[in-house]
């Protein structure tokens, strides 16, 4: 496989089935009910374990090794963290300091976002394994925090325009600090390009009464995937998207009907369709030997950030 002159194509796929995910969701629901909600972290772990195990890159599935117990601990810490923050805010209001209270509230909110993102990447990556090799996130919380402060500041004073650069900076930082073993990811997006793409998407969506939104969605997806690379010792692969606007149309409209007409029970199938579409439309191109990865990332069991992100409904991918 090494040093081939022509580049190879490496494929990603999702092999999960709606009915299998649905069964997991039903079991999760039963146990969540019995435990009055306490099972939630275990339910999440079971779902993630299934979804990861069905995501296959080059014939090998990903594995999620996080546990309900870890996420439960994180869940408790996240709750305490939020209660203390909110309690302080209420206390400031109580002692008639609304201005300081509101200032504190926003600072708390701004501070919590990078903490949640950092923590959730650190945990999730440490718990993602492929071919026996752990992923890892090596970003620094402080750096992400300052990136946030800068981003929010400029976004506010430019009335939102800087938002595009902020998003891409954040993505570049976070994705650029992801490792799999001793290989590094890189993201090379650009704020101006991203802004133009979204501006065009927005205008055309209005002009076409919404129809263009699927192509806009495709462009956003492409921009994410096509700027991603994986390197190790100077050799690497580039990720390429094969998604189409028509494909997104079929996926999203189909999912809409799938969920609505089943009163929500079709959600598992909609999720599987989405993951299948995403995975099937991402490929890696290049010359790389996936046999040469070395285990070099540390395990990390603290799920507080991941649970905070869950509370804030941040979603995993930025």
């Amino acid at each position, binding site marked *: 496989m090494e040093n081939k002159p022509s580049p190879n194509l490496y494929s990603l796929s999702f092999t999960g089935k709606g009915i299998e995910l649905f069964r997991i969701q039903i079991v999760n629901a*039963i146990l*969540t009910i019995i435990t009055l909600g306490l099972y939630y972290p275990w339910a999440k772990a079971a779902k993630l374990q299934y979804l990861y195990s069905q995501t296959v890159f080059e014939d090998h599935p990903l594995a999620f090794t996080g546990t309900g117990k870890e996420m439960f601990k994180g869940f408790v810490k996240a709750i305490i963290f939020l209660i203390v923050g909110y309690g302080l805010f209420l206390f400031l209001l109580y002692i008639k300091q609304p201005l300081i209270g509101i200032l504190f509230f926003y600072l708390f909110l701004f501070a919590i976002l990078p903490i949640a993102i950092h923590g959730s990447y650190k945990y999730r990556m440490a718990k993602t394994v*492929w071919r*026996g*090799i752990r992923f890892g996130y090596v970003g620094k919380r402080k750096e992400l925090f300052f990136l946030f402060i800068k981003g929010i500041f400029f976004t506010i004073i430019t009335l939102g325009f800087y938002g595009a650069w902020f998003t891409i900076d954040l993505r570049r930082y976070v994705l650029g600090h992801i490792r799999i073993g001793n290989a590094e990811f890189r993201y090379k997006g650009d704020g101006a390009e991203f802004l133009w793409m979204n501006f065009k998407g927005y205008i055309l969506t209005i002009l076409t009464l919404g129809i263009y939104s699927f192509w806009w969605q495709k462009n956003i997806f492409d921009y994410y995937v096509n700027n991603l690379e994986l390197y190790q010792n100077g050799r690497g692969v580039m990720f390429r998207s094969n998604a189409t606007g028509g494909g997104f149309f079929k996926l999203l409209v189909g999912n809409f009907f799938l969920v609505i007409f089943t*009163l*929500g029970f079709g959600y598992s199938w909609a999720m599987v369709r989405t993951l299948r579409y995403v995975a099937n439309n991402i490929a890696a191109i290049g010359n790389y030997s996936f046999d040469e990865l070395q*285990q070099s990332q540390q395990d990390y069991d603290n799920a507080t950030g991941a649970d905070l992100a869950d509370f804030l409904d941040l979603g995993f991918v930025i």
Partner: protein
Amino acid sequence: MYSKIEFFNGTTSKPYEASVEVSEGVIYISDPEQSEIPVHFSLQDCHYTKNNLKVFVYLNKQSTAYLMMGSENPTWLELKTSIDANKKGITHRLMKLNWLSLTAVLVGLVAFLYLSSTYLVPAIGLKVISTQKETVMGEKLFNSIIEDEKIDTPLTGLLKDFTSNLKLSDKYNIKVTVINDVNRPMYNAFALPGGHIVVYMSLLDKMNSSDELVALLSHESSHVNFRHSLRSMLSGISTSVLISILTSGIGDGGAVLSNANNFVRMGYSRNLEREADEQGMYLMLNNHISPKGMKALMQSLQKAHDDLPSSLAFISSHPLTKERIKNADHFVAVHDITNQVSSEREKTWHSIKENLLQ
């Protein structure tokens, strides 16, 4: 010839061809390329994933070391049996159930919890909360509602006089208030826990006789006497807490659940209305007034709603009012009496009407 077994040792991503042996809860793996001594893993830590025609047997909790082989490989069957035998716990048992049993468990659980939160929790709540506490709570509610409304003091006074001649409750002190809603007609009235009854001016305006007003007050007093608002609040709170717990776990099914809950709640409040109608008519009988007044009140209500702008008109075509009129008819057929006219009440009624005209 079976497909080969590949072993990944968790140090590098390189596969090694290996042979596998299972003995007394331990998996021994020997790979000729690496070492002479076989590496071993406890079966307890093992789990597996199937994908297409391949199986992946993870050998440790971190999933770093694993075996990959074809699903036709006899070693796989042997490993599967040993690993499955080690799996215990409720999750695995549930995962093994067939669809019918699984659905039955879920439906049974949801139904049990739902029924207990709708009926059991309110029943306990009603026992625990004394009438005094209820009155204090109702007073607080009343003050917070009334804060944003304009009270019509003369009409409130007149309605108080009107009510003072009626026997509406043994346990609660019935306190009436009239709200001025001339700018935004509500055609409504409601009762709060502990005895407050709030009547909107627009509704008084639509009434055609003092009997209708007695019917309204009897209906609302029945809500108070049978603690309907408290009951409905308790069941509302307990089901919404339950649903928020369920939705956090189920995620997707949650939407179905909260929609279903809305339907059930609508039915629940309809039942309370039906009970208030019936008990209200008994109160009318106690006050020697014909229950025909209830029917007349319903008809006035329906007419008021018919006058609403078309966006709200669908409410009037609601079968609920028709059904309530029918129920009142049945009640009248069995229980009707001749009205004992009270000149004082009629006088107050006319004053109310005159006041409304001003």
